[in-house]
């Protein structure tokens, strides 16, 4: 039976190219996107899996990639919101305010705003992190890659928590500038092309 399963997986891994490509290209980004709203990584993974099941069943993966991509992100977001609603019911969501903040965020992206996760590929974001100055890179690394909380970073670096908080905010703000700048340059470049064509 185990063998049959492996055979089954193997056959689909080699035959369902459209679907596999889509999965490989977007899975990680969709996971990041769902982690915007869902703290638990395993719940986030479930949401993404369910979304791919829907894509598989309605055969959306056969459509044009741009359409599918937009569909993927909004489907994951809806999945997350449903999850939150459910959490609110079962757990009486201890943190009413943080739910309100999340709802605000969801409404924001519902209005057509696009997250960096949707716009950029992960490499561009990682490149921007790499180009940060060392003290900023350090706090981003410790918080986002090592998973340390602010007070843990403070202990580790032997600095006040307040300094850690400041550095984290500055690091994020610098990253934001860098990403904006990049898209600004792209915009300039496109405009330049436009005038050349004229």
């Amino acid at each position, binding site marked *: 039976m185990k063998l049959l399963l492996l055979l089954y997986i193997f*056959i689909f891994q080699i035959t369902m190219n459209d679907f596999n490509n889509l999965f490989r290209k977007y*899975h990680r980004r969709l996971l990041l996107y769902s982690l915007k709203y869902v703290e638990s*990584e395993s719940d986030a993974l479930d949401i993404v899996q369910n979304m791919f099941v829907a894509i598989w069943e309605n055969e959306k993966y056969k459509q044009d990639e741009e359409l599918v991509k937009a569909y993927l992100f909004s489907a994951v977001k809806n999945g997350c919101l449903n999850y939150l609603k459910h959490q609110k019911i079962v757990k009486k969501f201890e943190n009413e305010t943080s739910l309100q903040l999340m709802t605000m965020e969801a409404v924001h992206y519902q209005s057509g705003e696009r997250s*960096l996760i949707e716009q950029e590929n992960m490499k561009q974001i990682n490149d921007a992190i790499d180009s940060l100055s060392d003290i900023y890179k350090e706090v981003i690394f410790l918080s986002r890659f090592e998973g340390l909380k602010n007070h843990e970073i403070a202990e580790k670096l032997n600095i006040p928590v307040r300094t850690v908080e400041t550095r984290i905010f*500055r690091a994020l703000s610098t990253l934001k500038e860098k990403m904006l700048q990049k898209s600004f340059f792209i915009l300039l470049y496109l405009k330049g092309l436009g005038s050349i064509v004229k």
Partner: protein
Amino acid sequence: MLLVLNAKNRMKDREYIENLIARFLNGNCTEAELQELKTWTKTSPENKKEYLSIKDIWDSANSPKENTEEQLSIFYKNQYEKIKKSRLLWIRYSSAVAAILLIALAISVLIPQKSTNQTESFQVFSVPLGSRSKVLLADGTAVSLNSGSELKYSSNFSADNRLVELTGEGFFEVKSDKEHPFLVKTKDFNVKVTGTQFNVCAYDENNFTSTTLAEGKIELQIDGSNQNFEITPGEKFELDRKTRKYTLGNADIESEIAWKDGEFIFRNIPFPDLLQRLERWYDVKLNYSDAGLQKFNFTGRFKNQETIWQVLDALKLTSPIDYRKTTFREFTIIYKPLKQN
């Protein structure tokens, strides 16, 4: 002075809110602090926008474990479990899997066979010693096979491809088809016909290989030479297998082909030939040691109802021989010259 103070306060406020955001994202915020943050985002669209864009950067700089391939396998595994639950689908997919396997199997079986396919498979029809049989071939040709004979033909034998190989003796009644000649191969010569009746005698142990034509016309080609012969009805072609010499002359058709109707006719045949025929006919072994027997020629006619005992008794009466049974189905023929007193 007041302005500077205001600016300082704003700076402090600004720092405070920045730290609050950082604490919210990666620290332990109290409910009161959360309220503060919420209120701040609500005060102006810029505040809200700033908060959301900082959070977006924070979210996109996240680095969960790289597990896309693992997740893809989990996806297929879940699909598999689901399908297992719904029997119908399960059967559909497993038959798809089975079909793929079958195709793969068929390909792996067929591809190597294609290269060896040149050596096509053969059907062999053999008649044991002591019995006779008749075969009807796919093109409508009837072949009577004498005792101890073997007819071999390709599994592709058809009305368009009429080729058989014969060891032993066979009488052919070939279905007429001028477009597609019928070919009989023996170890010594090939006989090509379009529609006739003829006998071919090509036993491995015989000294001679021969063919006798009853009706129609046959073309004969000796193996390993370009010699072609046309044989007319009533003629017998006989090839000495050792010397490769041949004779072509008139033959006694009746005695040649009587065997196919269960008769055993021999006219003036040498003693060794007679013994050989009898051996084959009755599936017995007949030995003799006296060379004096070889000079006798025999003539006779049996209806095949007789036993080997009756045949030998008859010979004993008409010629100077006697016989003794040595073992099971084995006899010794003894030369007993008539005493001339």
